[in-house]
């Protein structure tokens, strides 16, 4: 009965999304206050029914209701409770339901948290979100109903894919979806603004905190995904350039460009068309990601539900949403007035430069991801694009980006004297080059310039941030003001920028050092045997069998010591999940800020001998630490006071903005 209730709720939610898509929009165009007023209650109704449907599916998993086909495929009575809940989004139907549910969450969040938005604009925004909702809810109901019953009822469920039975992956999809779907808010604001023909600083100001929050979720989601891959795939890798990973990374890059471009639009009224286009692009790439993952167009280790019929549905949906919005853009954009002027060297140009670099990288990733498809469609045979393509691209573009990132916060809007900029950065430049050389020289005889370059870029970034802090708090009065009221408006976004940019510096160090200095060994070990690697001694104490709730595992015990002192005990496992009969590796990891010791268990070779893979991974934590800092920075920026207080000014006066001195200016 309860699954039918869930099914019925979904149908009601679809009906409400139709109402939401039609009436408030029509009301805002014909100026009918009664229709405009429908937006909020209908959004809440849609949310309530989708939430109910979601709760019904969760309930079906918790109560082991195997008469529901989806539960029978992905649930199991032996699953720990946490994974029973995460199994809800463990496969296609449920993850779509989660997607639709999160979309409704964002819709009611927009409906209830934007008090200072004119009712007609809010109605339009909610209407656009309703249209997106129609797409997803009908996709669910017509092609992938999670409440489908199965008869005869199986006695036991097919179990959740063991790869997904990991705490990191239990929360990775919801985070990622919060990010993907959150981009729909910026998208809806952009569409509403295009329809209304009012693209101004106010629009950018409304859009900014939403975009930043969505971007924070996307950052956390991607970081978690990478951390999961490292823990679970037993390969010591943290990023694979898999189509599914690319599908999450491309919206992130576009959104990164967007949050910076929104800053320019809000503060200077410039780049309006470009910002709108980026808003459309960020969400379009999220949708494209869904298509690539769900349609089976590309093969990936992640795509667990490929079905061409579903693919066609998403493709049609893509055409309507993306095609429609780009057509609207082509129609409306020519009428948008150009914003404030700026000279060749100004914060605007630097941000534009970084924007372009981000989009170029996105384009390269898109090309690399689609290349197998392009080759196939053109009849050139089949290829697979691997690491070299993507890595080369990053090595080429990142340095330019980091140089601009360092200059940006210290450059004035509108115009900056080149000579003055040179003076400001003289010391930073010297320090970073010297630091880079210092690191590069001892290693240079190995012909590896990369660690030096990474140190140089990171030092450059850090020293430019220090310079920026020094300039902002040059006099005591400003410092006192900060200590007296650290939450004053502008501080959140400024320190958010500092933290996030420091995160990039940390990330660059992590990536470069782990790729350059990691040591690994494939070994055959007998119980009691010791092997030395990277200054550590790994002693293998044999393998014993352990029982998990729904798997049995061989667990090796390895004692790691350094200079005779024990450092860590590692227990890498090879798990065999009882239902799915899939072997899984669970690496044994000793994590520390400066290095990870990582052991994965290979094959039993007879006589108690096992093959093992030992890794010494310096600085790998810095990769996720960087990701975390970037997310925290975004959060600080999103929580800035100025988004919370009632804002009365309608548009920023460019003339006034330009007179503001750098010290008082808050960066993005």
């Amino acid at each position, binding site marked *: 009965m309860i699954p039918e209730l869930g099914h019925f709720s979904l149908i009601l939610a679809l009906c409400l999304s139709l109402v939401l898509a039609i009436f408030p929009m029509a009301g805002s165009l014909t100026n009918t206050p009664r229709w405009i007023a429908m937006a909020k209650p209908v959004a809440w109704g849609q949310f309530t029914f989708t939430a109910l449907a979601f709760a019904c599916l969760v309930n079906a998993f918790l109560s082991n209701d195997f008469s529901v086909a989806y539960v029978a495929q992905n649930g199991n009575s032996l699953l720990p409770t946490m994974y029973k809940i995460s199994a809800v989004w463990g496969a296609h139907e449920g993850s779509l339901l989660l997607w639709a549910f999160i979309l409704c969450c964002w819709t009611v969040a927009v409906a209830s948290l934007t008090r200072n938005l004119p009712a007609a604009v809010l109605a339009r925004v909610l209407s656009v979100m309703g249209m997106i909702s129609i797409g997803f809810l009908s996709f669910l109901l017509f092609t992938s109903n999670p409440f489908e019953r199965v008869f005869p009822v199986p006695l036991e469920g097919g179990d959740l894919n063991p790869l997904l039975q990991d705490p990191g992956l239990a929360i990775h999809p919801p985070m990622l979806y919060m990010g993907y779907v959150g981009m729909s808010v910026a998208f809806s604001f952009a569409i509403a603004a295009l329809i209304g023909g009012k693209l101004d600083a106010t629009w950018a100001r409304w859009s900014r905190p939403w975009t930043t929050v969505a971007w924070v979720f996307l950052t956390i989601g991607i970081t978690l995904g990478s951390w999961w891959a490292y823990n679970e795939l037993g390969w010591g890798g943290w990023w694979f350039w898999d189509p599914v990973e690319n599908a999450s990374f491309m919206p992130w890059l576009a959104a990164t460009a967007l949050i910076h471009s929104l800053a320019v639009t809000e503060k200077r009224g410039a780049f309006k068309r470009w910002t709108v286009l980026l808003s459309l692009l960020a969400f379009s790439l999220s949708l494209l990601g869904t298509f690539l993952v769900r349609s089976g*167009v*590309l093969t990936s*280790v992640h795509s667990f539900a490929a079905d061409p019929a579903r693919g066609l549905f998403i493709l049609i949906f*893509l055409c309507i949403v993306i095609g429609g919005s780009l057509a609207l853009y*082509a129609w409306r954009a020519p009428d948008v007035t150009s914003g404030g002027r700026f000279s060749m060297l100004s914060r605007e140009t630097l941000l534009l430069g970084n924007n372009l670099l981000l989009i170029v990288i996105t384009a390269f990733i898109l090309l690399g991801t689609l290349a197998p498809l392009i080759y196939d469609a053109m009849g050139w045979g089949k290829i697979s694009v691997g690491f070299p393509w993507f890595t080369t691209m990053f090595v080429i573009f990142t340095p330019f980006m980091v140089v601009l990132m360092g200059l940006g916060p210290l450059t004035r809007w509108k115009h900056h004297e080149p000579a003055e900029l040179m003076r400001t950065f003289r010391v930073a430049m010297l320090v970073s080059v010297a630091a880079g050389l210092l690191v590069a020289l001892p290693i240079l005889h190995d012909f590896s310039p990369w660690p030096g370059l990474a140190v140089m870029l990171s030092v450059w970034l850090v020293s430019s941030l220090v310079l920026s802090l020094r300039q902002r708090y040059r006099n005591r009065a400003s410092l006192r003001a900060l200590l007296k009221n650290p939450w004053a408006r502008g501080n959140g976004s400024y320190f958010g920028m500092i933290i996030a940019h420091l995160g990039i510096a940390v990330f660059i160090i992590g990536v470069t050092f782990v790729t350059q200095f990691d040591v690994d060994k494939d070994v055959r070990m007998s119980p009691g045997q010791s092997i030395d690697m990277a200054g550590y001694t790994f002693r293998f104490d044999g393998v014993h069998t352990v029982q998990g709730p729904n798997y049995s595992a061989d667990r090796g015990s390895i004692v790691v010591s350094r200079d005779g002192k024990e450092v860590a005990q590692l227990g890498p496992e090879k798990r065999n999940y009882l239902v799915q009969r*899939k*072997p899984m590796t669970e690496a044994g990891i000793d994590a520390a800020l400066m290095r990870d010791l990582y052991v994965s268990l*290979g094959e039993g070779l007879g006589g108690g001998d096992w093959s093992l893979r030992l890794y010494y991974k310096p600085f790998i934590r810095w990769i996720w630490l960087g990701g975390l800092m970037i997310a925290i920075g975004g959060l600080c920026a999103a929580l800035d006071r100025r988004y919370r207080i009632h804002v009365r000014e309608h548009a920023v006066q460019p003339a006034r903005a330009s007179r503001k001195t750098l010290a008082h200016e808050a960066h993005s």
Partner: protein
Amino acid sequence: MARYLRYLVPLLLFVLLVGLLYRGLSLDPKIVPSPLIGKPMPAFSLTRLDDASATISDTDLRGKVSMLNVWATWCTSCRAEHETLVEFARTGKIAIYGLNYKDDRADAQRWLMQLGNPYIANAFDPDGRTGIDWGVYGAPETFIMDKHGIIRHKHIGPLTGQVIATEILPLIAKLEASE
């Protein structure tokens, strides 16, 4: 007019992309019909992966029901199927041979040492010539031959427990039973 055309560029790019994706839908990367099914396996003679001085040829595969798995270390899907393949090899249901495709010898040897070796022997095909003869589109692909060396089945994409249980095992039983 040109002023307006500029803003159509994103839309046009998107239309191109949709065309590509639509084409992609009809091209399932997993289903590529093989004209080789029902035909004798193409002849080859290559060096062994583990020993560059020894050779392996199609005659090694004849006279029994055999499996040829095309793999490479650069292929993530091969990584995904490898453990399944190792498990399957333990059952001893079929003689599993490998074709190491467009790969590096040292990398491939290391991979087998670390992840386990399900193969009786591996043919080393660095330039993919033999792969072309066999109509290999991309790794992983798996061929099944009967006792007379006739290709009976081709599976594209990673082998899973389910594929083995529902497709491969019944086929092996059938081929073993027939003369």
